[in-house]
């Protein structure tokens, strides 16, 4: 390509929030048609940087150049007018409207007439199969993402920013997305691809900038640089994998049993559970894979006891019927839970850490007597969790909400593990946690299962499940596939199940 003028160049970009520097003197350049990766752990400053490029935030210092000219991008509308499009990690689509209506809303001055045709044309050109007339709430996550991409493409962008685009996709959908991105790039549209997944980046990007703690720590060609080297750059030290104990040959008795659990959806945005059955044995770590929104949160609510099963014996904890027990009753029976959403579900952000211990331990760990709270014991519990799981906070008695996401996650997982429960159900155990902390959490889950507890991990991170699970089941449209040993599975097989293929069953009924 040679030394042509970069399409976009960032020079010494710095962004401060109060005392905290989210970006410090970052420079990078992207050529037209280049597929450039922005790599880094959660909190490395990737999102802050692209928000400045997209005009959502303004840099504290430094400058942006577009086609060699210094520019100020005051807001996203200005960015779009220049030719910058962005697909956010969280979709901003209206569920009640159709695909075409959603796209018309985002394009100022766009007429509905003729739009479906233009949508079809773009979708054909780039292999983004979508029907303009369908209501958005009937679409899968991957299809919703296509709506967002088409919305950007209709404005003929020169640079498309993709923020963690594959976190909601099955491996097959990911493959389709990558083909689209390649085609775009050949047509001259540059791609700025944000991710922390190295293998994806190797597949589609030709250059990469690695960020750590708000600084650029390296530029490389991800196709030729060894994975370990890039990972070390991202984390700042050598990455240690989880020590995988030999799978327990003689798994213990069934400790958590689910038999024919069905729950209706309470709204059109919920997924109904359809006759879910599963046994988790003592000493075993069972993983449930699936893309987002396939019934994981509903299953979690049913297991915690926030929603009760139809009959007691549908859920059994250590052979005791528990389907109609309250969350407290289930905890007293030996179960513990970590829901996916740590802010406002697993923890109350405006309360202190000891108070958050109380949330799940008030009866189960005997922290209250006759309704009187034992403050000393509660504080001690919080202290033990903080020490054992290295929960870092700026001050001695922080509110849960002032902890970083990773530290709060270590706290809510550690809180339950430290009780040494007979049964632990955890959803997205390492969501938004840096690699080091994720290793600590995964090791703790593994150790708990090897000590004889039944551990059920619901996760969208396939790599994680393959690293720690003994058996994996897949949830899709509120149905659970039979669990199979990891030795018999590979990513492709699980990926097919995540996309809805039923093993040994070709008659798929409409969900």
């Amino acid at each position: 390509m040679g030394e042509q003028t970069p399409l976009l160049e960032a020079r010494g970009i710095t962004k401060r929030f109060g005392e905290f520097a989210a970006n410090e003197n970052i420079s990078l350049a992207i050529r037209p048609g280049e597929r450039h990766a922005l790599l880094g752990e959660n909190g490395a400053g990737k999102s802050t940087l692209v928000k400045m490029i997209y005009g959502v935030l303004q840099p504290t210092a430094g400058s942006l150049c577009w086609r060699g000219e210094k520019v100020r991008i005051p807001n996203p509308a200005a960015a779009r007018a220049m030719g910058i499009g962005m697909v956010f990690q969280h979709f901003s689509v209206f569920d009640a409207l159709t695909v075409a209506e959603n796209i018309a809303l985002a394009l100022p001055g766009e007429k509905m007439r003729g739009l479906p045709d233009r949508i079809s044309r773009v979708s054909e050109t780039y292999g983004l199969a979508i029907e303009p007339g369908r209501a958005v709430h009937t679409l899968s996550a991957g299809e919703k993402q296509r709506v967002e991409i088409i919305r950007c493409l209709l404005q003929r962008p020169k640079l498309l920013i993709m923020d963690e685009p594959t976190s909601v996709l099955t491996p097959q959908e990911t493959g389709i997305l990558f083909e689209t991105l390649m085609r775009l790039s050949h047509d001259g549209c540059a791609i700025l691809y944000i991710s922390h997944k190295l293998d994806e980046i190797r597949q589609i990007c030709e250059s990469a900038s690695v960020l750590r703690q708000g600084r650029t720590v390296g530029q490389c060609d991800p196709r030729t640089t060894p994975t370990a080297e890039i990972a070390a750059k991202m984390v700042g030290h050598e990455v240690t994998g989880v020590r995988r104990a030999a799978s327990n040959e003689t798994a213990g008795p069934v400790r958590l049993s689910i038999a024919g659990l069905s729950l209706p959806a309470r709204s059109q945005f919920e997924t109904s559970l359809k006759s879910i059955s599963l046994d988790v044995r003592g000493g075993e770590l069972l993983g449930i894979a699936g893309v987002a929104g396939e019934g994981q949160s509903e299953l979690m609510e049913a297991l915690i006891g926030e929603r009760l099963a139809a009959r007691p014996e549908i859920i059994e904890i250590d052979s005791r019927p528990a389907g109609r027990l309250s969350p407290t009753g289930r905890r007293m029976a030996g179960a513990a839970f970590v829901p996916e959403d740590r802010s406002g579900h697993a923890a109350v952000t405006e309360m202190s850490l000891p108070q958050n211990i109380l949330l799940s331990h008030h009866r189960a760990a005997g922290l209250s007597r006759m309704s009187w709270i034992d403050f000393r014991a509660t504080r001690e519990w919080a202290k033990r969790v903080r020490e054992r799981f290295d929960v870092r906070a700026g001050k001695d008695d922080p509110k849960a909400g002032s902890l970083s996401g990773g530290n709060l996650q270590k706290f809510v997982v550690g809180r339950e593990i430290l009780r040494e429960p007979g049964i632990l159900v955890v959803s997205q155990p390492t969501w938004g946690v840096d690699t080091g902390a994720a290793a600590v959490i995964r090791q703790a889950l593994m150790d708990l299962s090897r000590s004889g507890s039944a551990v059920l991990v619901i996760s969208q991170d396939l790599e994680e499940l393959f690293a720690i699970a003994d058996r994996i089941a897949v949830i899709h449209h509120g149905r659970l596939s039979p669990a199979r040993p990891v030795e018999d599975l590979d990513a492709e097989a699980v990926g097919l199940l995540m996309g809805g293929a039923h093993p040994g069953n070709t008659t798929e009924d409409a969900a």
Partner: protein
Amino acid sequence: MILTLEPRAEPSPVMALVTPIIAVGLTLIAGGALLAGMGRAPGEALWVYFVSPFMDSYSRSELLVKAIPLGLIGAGLAVCFRANVWNIGAAGQYTMGAIFGGAIALNAPDATGPLWLVAYLAAGVLGGMVWAAIPALLRTRFNANEILVCLMLAYVAGLLLDWLVRGPWKDPLGFGFPQSRDFGEAFLMPVILAGTRLHAGLWMVIAIALALAVMMGRTMKGFEIRVTGAAPRAGAFAGFSQAGVIWFVLLLSGGLAGLAGALEVSATIQQLQPDISAGYGFTAIIVAFVGRLNPAGALIGAVVLAVTYIGGDNAQILLKLPKNVTGIFQGMLLFFLLACDTLIRYRIRPGSSREQEV
């Protein structure tokens, strides 16, 4: 100069205590401007409003008499608001307390013995609870907004009382005035300071507010209420029933408002009239906020708001100021307080914000 609001990392505990004082200060300044606009000397008028209530012993005792119902209702509302349940119809529950108590008092004119007073007050509590049970039921069963239901029921209770004292409970010897007969001796609250109207309700409000403060701070019940109010999903995760909390706080605040109604009628008016409330049910909302939604703090809030009542009476007599000025002062206090509470979560920084929202 351009100022920017900047979020604090954590809510400031100091500011939570300082903002009521700032709000009172701002109310005085704005109130002074208002009085000047009405052609009065602001200094003198403010002195009548806010200082004269403390100047003689009778006014001081009347201050406490007004603070008793305000404190009782305010303490209950503080608990209720913590649960994120907005009972703004305490005025109706207060009225129903007086009506339920009145039903006993008016049917036993010759009663003697202390047990009758206990039964009278218990009926008052029950009346408030019954009235608060309606929004609780509608909220937990049909997800009806408790703010609207509570507020509208307040007017229903007021009209019910009006009908009673003009109809079935009208005093035959009352020269046609809309009022009931006087209550019997057994139904009058004992006076604790001779020569004043200060009654034993003072000990009750102090004991109840302190007990509620202990409940909120040290027991699982209080924790349950605070968690459910702050994060309902976390409450469900902890195994707390949201419906249970809604019932508990509405019955508690309704019962205390009912008790306040029965106490007030027994201690000061000693008969039922259409206008028994003096707006205590609504003013107590400000009491709860001045008291930082802490039941013990509501005691302080009650005294602060009682000052505006006594001061308003004095201003009416001495300065011929309309009574509505009192309501304006109370309203300004609430507005300034809620506005100042922004400082708990944010700090002010000079300079412009360079961020632009999407």
